[in-house]
């Protein structure tokens, strides 16, 4: 069901001197080393994400951001961490103390567990390759909602409860679109294992964003909404709800929520990278490492490729946050249910039609979309195996799908814009006002008198 990987050979020799059993090294020691490394790196990321956020927001607003602690303010996150660790851990008098204490841990754990199945690189760059990896990521990351609801509920505060309710409503509605948008890519990959999805793209030497541009857009938007980031940061809308679900939290427990948020951003970026941007696959890396005849170099370069792709997506997160204003609550629900979910449903249908077209076109009019297969082999046993022509057709249909979806949504939601304005204004009829005459305000007293 799940596969663990051996460490790189130089480390393997070292570890064998300590344990002298290959199974122990493969199944216990090396996974623990990987887990430790990932947790450390993600924690450091969560620290420095706050620095990056402040710097990027400052640059976008023609400011400088933190500059005082260390060169270019680089030690600012450490100063912040020291401050948070030494702050008083306040628990409100009427709060439920146990749930209040453990909600941050649930939040952090739920996001950190998902890192175990993400393929950062081929071979020893994966902690474990679960054959339902994507399902695992989706199910575990939705446990994070539970933490927010518990935190909001147990705080016994109006703002926290409202924030928790909002976040649960938001996450539930966007999770649907998120899950549905993945199906299109899965129809091309034909596996739920995240390593398998990457390998499917490497085998076709094409990224699924080319086949599935619409799904990528839906996934990104739902992912941002899922992480409660601006412009979808309604659960912690500062101007309305003080701080949302973590209003009553202080010190380290508050920063755990913060950490979980930034780690969840990495998870969504990693899943988007794996599914749509080819994971660790970049054309030419294998050949480049082949010149040096080093497998470890290949894995390392793949890791760098993965991190760079993820970094670009994370920059997009910051970029969107500091560009767009926050959605109103009804607009958020509108976008989720009327735009994202129909679009993702359309994407499934469109992908099905694409694959059907690819199979129907094969051998028709000299076209050659699928790789030739042997006689007894079923049609879709090993992925789609598209030829160059087939890829061309798939990519064209993919981008056409973007346009089709836009037209479809524009048609579907053609009245959603005048929900509050045009239609309602047209229905306003004032009693006893002649055509074109200015309206005169009537008081309640005269209205009653008129009736009498």
């Amino acid at each position, binding site marked *: 069901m799940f596969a663990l990987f051996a460490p790189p050979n130089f480390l393997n020799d070292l570890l064998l001197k300590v344990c002298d059993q290959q199974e122990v090294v493969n199944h216990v020691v090396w996974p623990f080393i990987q887990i430790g490394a990932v947790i450390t790196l993600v924690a450091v990321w969560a620290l420095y994400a706050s620095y990056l956020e402040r710097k*990027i927001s*400052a*640059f*976008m*607003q*023609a*400011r*400088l951001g933190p*500059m005082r602690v260390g060169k270019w303010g680089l030690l600012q996150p450490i100063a912040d961490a020291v401050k948070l660790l030494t702050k008083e851990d306040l628990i409100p008098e009427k709060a439920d103390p146990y749930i209040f204490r453990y909600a941050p841990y649930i939040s952090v754990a739920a996001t950190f567990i998902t890192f175990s199945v993400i393929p950062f690189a081929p071979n020893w760059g994966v902690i474990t390759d679960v054959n339902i990896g994507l399902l695992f990521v989706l199910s575990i990351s939705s446990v994070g909602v539970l933490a927010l609801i518990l935190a909001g509920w147990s705080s016994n505060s109006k703002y926290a409860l409202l924030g928790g309710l909002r976040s649960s409503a938001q996450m539930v509605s966007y999770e649907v679109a998120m899950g549905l948008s993945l199906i299109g890519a899965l129809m091309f990959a034909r596996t739920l294992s995240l390593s398998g999805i990457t390998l499917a793209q490497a085998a076709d030497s094409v990224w699924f964003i080319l086949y599935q541009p619409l799904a990528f857009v839906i996934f990104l938007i739902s992912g941002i909404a899922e992480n409660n980031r601006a412009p979808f940061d309604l659960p912690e809308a500062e101007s309305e709800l003080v701080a949302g679900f973590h209003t009553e939290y202080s010190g380290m427990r508050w920063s755990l929520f913060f950490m979980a948020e930034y780690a969840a951003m990495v998870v969504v970026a990693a899943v988007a990278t794996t599914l749509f941007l080819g994971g660790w696959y970049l054309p030419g890396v294998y050949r480049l490492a082949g010149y040096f005849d080093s497998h470890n170099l290949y894995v390392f370069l793949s890791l760098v490729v993965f991190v760079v792709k993820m970094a670009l997506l994370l920059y997009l997160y910051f*970029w*969107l946050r*500091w*560009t*767009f204003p926050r959605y109103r609550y009804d607009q958020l629900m509108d976008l989720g249910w009327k735009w994202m979910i129909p679009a993702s449903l359309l994407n499934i249908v469109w992908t099905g039609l694409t694959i059907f077209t690819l199979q129907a076109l094969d051998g028709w009019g000299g076209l050659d979309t699928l790789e030739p297969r042997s006689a007894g082999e079923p049609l879709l046993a090993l992925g789609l195996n598209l030829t160059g022509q087939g890829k061309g057709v798939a990519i064209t249909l993919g981008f056409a799908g973007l346009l089709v979806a*836009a037209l479809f949504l*524009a048609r579907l939601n053609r009245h959603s814009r*005048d929900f509050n*304005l*045009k239609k309602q*204004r*047209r229905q*306003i*009829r*004032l009693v006893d006002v002649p*055509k074109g005459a200015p*309206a005169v305000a009537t008081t309640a007293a005269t209205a009653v008198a008129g009736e009498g």
Partner: protein
Amino acid sequence: MPLVKVPRAKLGEKLKRFFLADMFKGMWLTLKFNLGALTSRDSVRGFGIYTEQYPSVRPQVAPRFHGAPRLNMDPETHESLCIACNLCALACPEDCIDVIAMDIEMTVGGKPRKKKVLDEFIFDTSRCMFCALCQEACPTACLELTQEFELATYSRAGFVWNREMLEQGRESRKFEA
């Protein structure tokens, strides 16, 4: 019959909405500022960083800026240029200058004479509105409002500057760059 007239969108506007033109415009703006901050620091063109690192980097004030007062000295003899004529105190609309003069005995050409010299100069910066009328009234270019702008103190009494402070400049903490 609608009471409010809602304008119908034209085709160009509809296309703009369809392709989310305004969204991409906004994203391009923030990206431009971010790249501008990383590459050039040209805030004049509007793409760079506008912030000054104040205590370490001194801001450039305008040439006609009026700040802390100063009593100038003769650069050769290091004696005060002030002749205690009281014109600055008369010119001041806020009445914040006090010139206290004293007569000293001296012999000019073998004859004893009395000369009016400056004893003490009181300048209340808390009442000053930095109009620089005193500077214009001064016949010897002694009183001058400099470009120095850090006038904050910890007490009200600190705003009243005496002759020594006006001549030497107030002691202030300078931050290194």
